[in-house]
């Protein structure tokens, strides 16, 4: 149960960040993108969290923070867990802010190359 206290902290941090909005969100988003790259998330999920054969889509519309952070901290599936020694609670919250900041994908019907 090593992840439990951190999950609570992370949820709190995310809540604070999300509640602040505006500049605070932008700042954490910038660091979140940096964390997303530095921690290797992009290796399986792509730089915009779009997913692919190696990992599922994370964004746009990420999972609720609690669900995502629980998985990140304690997964025993193909994705390795990111514990606090590797990814701090603050960085995880920023990372989530980055995922939230990724704009919605265009409607595939509006993309000519996807309609032939």
């Amino acid at each position, binding site marked *: 149960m090593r992840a439990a206290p951190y999950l609570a902290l992370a949820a709190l941090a995310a809540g604070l960040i999300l509640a602040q909005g505006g500049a605070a969100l932008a700042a954490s988003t910038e660091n979140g993108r940096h964390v997303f*790259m*530095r921690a*290797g998330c*992009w*290796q*399986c999920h*792509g*730089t*915009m969290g*779009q*997913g*692919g*054969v*190696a*990992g599922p*889509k994370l*964004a*746009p519309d990420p999972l609720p923070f609690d669900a995502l952070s629980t998985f990140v901290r304690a*997964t*025993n*599936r*193909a994705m*390795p*867990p*990111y*514990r606090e*020694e*590797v990814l701090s609670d603050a960085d995880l919250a920023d990372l989530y802010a980055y995922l939230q900041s990724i704009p919605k*994908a*265009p*409607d*595939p019907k509006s*993309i000519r*190359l*996807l*309609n*032939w």
Partner: protein
Amino acid sequence: MAHKSALLNVDRRKFLAGVAVAGAATAAAPQTTPIAAPLPDRRPSGLRPSAQMAAAETAMPKELPRAHAADGSDFMVDVIKTLDFEYLPANPASSFRGLHESLIDYGGNKKPEFLTCMHEESAVAMAHGYFKAAGKPLLTLCHGTVGLQHAAMAIYNAWCDRVPVIVVGGTDLDAAHRPPGVPTVHSAQDINTLVRDFTKWDDTPVSLQHFAQSFVRAYKIAMTPPMGPVAIALDGGLQQAPIHENGERLYIPRYVATSPPQGDSGAVREAARLLANAERPVIVVDRAARSANGMKLIVELAEALQAPVVDHGGRMNFPNTHYLNQSGRGNALIGQADVILGLELADYWGTVNAFIDNGEEEGTGLREPRTKNGVRLISITSAGLLTKSNYQEFQRFQVVDIEMAADVEATLPALIDAVKVAIPNDRKSAIEKRGEALRKAWAEGRERAKSAAAVAWDASPISTARLSMELWAQIKRLDWSLVTSGNVSNWPKRLWTMERYYQSLGGPGGYGVGYGAPAAVGAALANRAEGRFSVSIQSDGDLMYAPGVLWTAARHRIPLLSVMHNNRAYHQEAMHVQRLANRRDRVANLGKDMCPVGTAIENPDPDYAKLAASLGWWSAGPIKDPNELAGALEYAVEVVKAGEPALVDVWTQPR
């Protein structure tokens, strides 16, 4: 009848004597006696050599003796020509100089035409790709110990992928007479041991008649399912010695194809009974279709059962536009199945079990069955007829209920007939409804794939979905063949229209990196004869194993559009190191790169467009803005349509 090795010794000795005794008159006419020339006295002596002896040992020979009989390698060319090889990709070398000279001069450099390669691995991989596009094997030559070792990785890929390649390796067996120095370093007592673990058969002929029999035998063995590479070691002396039939007329055995093994009739009936009565049958295919006819047969079986097909993609097994192609839902369908038919699966265990690489089970990872209790498993594969001990490509052992050691294409007609007979009348309505549900699921799957492709559509580095669809827009009206497809999250299979056998050729088999570029060139060579447009999605790390194959394509005017999936890393390895770092609660050391130390291909960034241009290709890139892709690809397509190779370097997302 003369003993073959005796004949060989006579001929070799005469040839070498001719070299040692420059211009010796006795060497000018064919001899039948063992001693052809008045050799200097070679008794051991502590005395200084005579002037004659010193000259014989050290001076340059004035002229090689002219053979009045045809050389052995001319006869070898006669043998080779009976098997209708179109091309011979090879790196030139002294150990097969006799055969090389005969091929291009006596044989006129036609059928086969010599294609200059810059690495033996490239030559074999070209033959690998060629076969999968043409259905015909190629012959390649390897230089002694060093050439065969260079070729070994590609031969292993062909072995794992069940592809026939005829590998002829030069060597020089006669330790007493072969040239000293380098040729000796390049010779081995039993050179084929290098590749014996992953070839179907090998031989070292000691006479020309032996060569004729072994070459035709090798071809026959390679082409009989389960197909695979074969190796013939070719003695340098045998190539260069004149032909002496000594009363025995040399002949070339006629090649007659061997019928592939068909499944036992009882096993076929029992498999049909299980499938016909199944509630949720699933057909899983991998290297099942050996030809376009194989694909038609799989479609016919699936339609008779209205069963979903999950294609692992070792070959083009099933059209991706057919509603029964449910590959995108493979694991879910396997989890619900009550009967699973596996057709030429490389890994049956991995099909019905999940492996989670999470460090559990004392570090070995977790194994979870994908299937429900009571599922019945059927397998048809010829791989079981050819299993060796050392290399472990046969995967984990999987118990199945019915196993046929047989060729899929040869067995399917009987299985289809048996299924049609076995379907009870009261099941026909349920089977039809199953088909209707699958039709709906297929359409929904396509829409989901389009929605997924739209995510990160404008990203830079460019998403693999965008890359694939920009490419598709340029080639979809052509008669195209995707000769290698890199690792782009299967977008072509998810969104292109793939209906013809040559439109997807599968992967390397042994997962030996370095297959993609040469196999693409080989397949493009086969497609050139058919007027097809060849396109490859080329991984960066793969290309850098042996980029010299680009020159081969330019030199021999092999049209190929190569679009780089340049993710600037050995990305699979980046993910592996990241996984282990996390598991050990350590921050992965990235150094100055984007990926863990040792896995990135950046700083400096290879310029693949310049590399390709330096080797004779039209090229563009690196392209990082997705909006610039269409123009570059459009131009590149025109270059390839004009008969030249073209490369477009694209900075992409990792997968």
